[in-house]
């Protein structure tokens, strides 16, 4: 007996509202405000239905299943964190949305739970929390606010060079389906810097609905590396909202695998002149996995630059979606914005939807936007095989050659060196023997 999608969506919304009502009010004022706003917005924002344009390629069915709203336990057993070869940095461990382990940091860098924020940290929270991830038309961002019971603040003070930091968003070992609503706020004050490696871990049937807000102050620099290198049954939805102030720099490099449902919404605002943004994405989907990237670059001020490079491989019956929107506001003269999206289908049943979206309201701008979808080059395949490389190994070599440019752009060598074997392992886990290329 099939239940209609609309009924399942309605049922999900009702259960979410009940869940919200059952939570006790938090003591931290900023968190209380977030919860209240989230709850109100969720009540009035419809969930995406079959006709919602920005959800056209992502059906929310996998998010609606039983148990995926169940409250995450604060004391669930911690997972084992697989080592990331060669990369060692102070680690923030967020499990099922709960901040479980926070590192001690030197003066100038504050890392605190929202619930424990005090003094300057509490001030930053009241000022910034919820100021970037706007709620309008975004029911899951609202739901995150409504159900976030705690979160992590990362604050780097003015002119402090923050070094490297690891942010782990992991699932617990609690095997029962449940929800998780991680919330992270990163604030870099003027002239500061940080390298942040964000890793998502866990393959169980858990709905992780994360929201990350990032404010980059004047002439500050954030190198952000995002790794979603586990597939499986994880339902993962992550909103990332970034604002870059005058002469600030934001560099986001991503290595992503699909899962049964994965969607990343990324909005980057260049709010003041001189902001510089680079984004890279090396992605791979296999089996019936799903990976949806909703990218939006808001050029709101003159003299800013953005450069985005996406390379996607899709195999078997998987689906990769990239919506790359560039919005150049009327006063954003002298903007330079580029987006290149190249995609390779590894099988006839795979699907790639790469859609550019340009909205340009200023006349003196440089804007380039290109998307291609193709297959591995037969001539190159033959060339490698004529030298004795097996067909599978040749396909692997060419596929990674295709991703190489993006992987090479990871700013930390230790991370770069670990990304490639991780992607290769994912590639080979599906009977694409490494053969002679190993």
């Amino acid at each position: 007996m099939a239940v209609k999608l609309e009924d399942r969506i309605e049922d999900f919304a009702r259960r979410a509202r009940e869940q919200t009502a059952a939570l006790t009010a938090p003591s931290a004022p900023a968190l209380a405000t977030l919860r209240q706003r989230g709850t109100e917005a969720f009540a009035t924002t419809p969930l995406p239905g079959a006709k919602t344009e920005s959800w056209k390629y992502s059906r929310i069915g996998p998010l609606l299943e039983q148990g995926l709203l169940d409250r995450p336990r604060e004391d669930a057993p911690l997972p084992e964190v697989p080592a990331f070869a060669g990369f060692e940095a102070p680690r923030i461990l967020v499990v099922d949305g709960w901040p479980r382990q926070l590192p001690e940091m030197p003066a100038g860098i504050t890392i605190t739970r929202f619930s424990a924020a005090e003094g300057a940290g509490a001030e930053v929270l009241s000022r910034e929390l919820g100021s970037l991830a706007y709620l309008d038309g975004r029911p899951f961002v609202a739901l995150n606010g409504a159900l976030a019971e705690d979160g992590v603040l990362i604050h780097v003070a003015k002119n402090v060079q923050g070094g490297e930091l690891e942010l782990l968003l992991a699932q617990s070992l609690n095997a029962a389906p449940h929800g998780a609503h991680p919330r992270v706020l990163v604030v870099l004050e003027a002239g500061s810097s940080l390298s942040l490696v964000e890793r998502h871990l866990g393959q169980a049937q858990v709905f992780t609905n994360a929201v990350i807000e990032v404010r980059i102050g004047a002439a500050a620099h954030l190198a952000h590396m995002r790794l979603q290198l586990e597939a499986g049954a994880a339902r993962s939805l992550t909103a990332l909202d970034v604002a870059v102030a005058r002469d600030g720099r934001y560099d986001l490099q991503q290595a992503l695998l699909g899962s049964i449902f994965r969607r990343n919404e990324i909005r980057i605002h260049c709010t003041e002149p001189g902001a510089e943004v680079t984004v890279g994405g090396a992605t791979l989907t296999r089996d019936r996995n799903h990976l949806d990237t909703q990218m939006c670059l808001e050029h709101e001020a003159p003299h800013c630059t953005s450069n985005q490079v996406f390379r996607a491989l899709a195999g078997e019956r998987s689906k990769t979606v990239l919506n790359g929107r560039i919005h150049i506001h009327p006063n954003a003269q002298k903007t330079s914005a580029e987006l290149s999206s190249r995609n390779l289908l590894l099988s006839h049943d795979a699907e790639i939807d790469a859609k550019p979206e340009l909205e340009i309201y200023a006349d003196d701008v440089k804007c380039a936007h290109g998307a291609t979808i193709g297959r591995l080059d037969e001539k190159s395949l033959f060339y490698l095989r004529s030298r004795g490389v097996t067909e599978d190994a040749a396909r692997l070599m060419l596929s990674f050659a295709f991703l190489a440019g993006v992987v090479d752009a990871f700013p930390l060598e230790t991370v770069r060196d670990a990304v490639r074997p991780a992607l290769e392992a994912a590639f080979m886990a599906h009977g694409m023997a490494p053969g002679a290329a190993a």
Partner: protein
Amino acid sequence: MLKIRNLHVAAEGEAILKGLDLEVAAGEVHAIMGPNGSGKSTLAAVMAGREGYEITEGSIEFLGEDLAGLEPEERAWRGLFLAFQYPVEIPGVTNLEFLRASVDAHRAYRGEEATSAVDFMKLARATSKQLRFDTDFLKRGVNEGFSGGEKKRNELLQMLLLQPKLALLDETDSGLDIDALQIVADGVNTLRSPERAIVMITHYQRLLDHIVPDKVHVLSGGRIVRSGGKELALELERKGYGWLEEAAA
């Protein structure tokens, strides 16, 4: 070593080779000449196992085995090597990584262990040096941005590393300057031995001064229309192909 009998090959429904016979014994060097579009590269492609070429009649036997049933990599493992007329560029795969994968694939076929990175680097450097090929080319993408002559030298580098039993050189001399031609010829000559054979496709008799062939064939209209000793090349240089095409018609 190589026995081609009454070979007919078609591509996209178009007959290109129309009854070609050729025998090459171990230890021999053969040259194939012939006008543009006569089917020389097609012969090379069909031997290497390129898709899109259909053998409609006849056979190619290499070391007693019919090639038709073998994948391109299986032909390579058995000792067949084609130096391409137009080598492809593969950005993102480094030349070193590619060369090592090919050498290790051959070793795996022979039941030998893969080379160590250090040993392979030594071998690749030494062979590059022999071809006076700057070792920087090992670090670059396969043929990426190489000049015409550099691509040809890279083909030679692969050949020397793989030590094939039958090397098929498709216009490896085209685009080489005078010094490079000498270096490449020296490289090919080091491969000459009683167990190996070499087939060179060329338009220029000049190459044959450096690598002296045992036999010269003229391929025209999809068939070998004339075979002879190295003096045939000199005759072609003087008279062109017209007289042969008329005789064959």
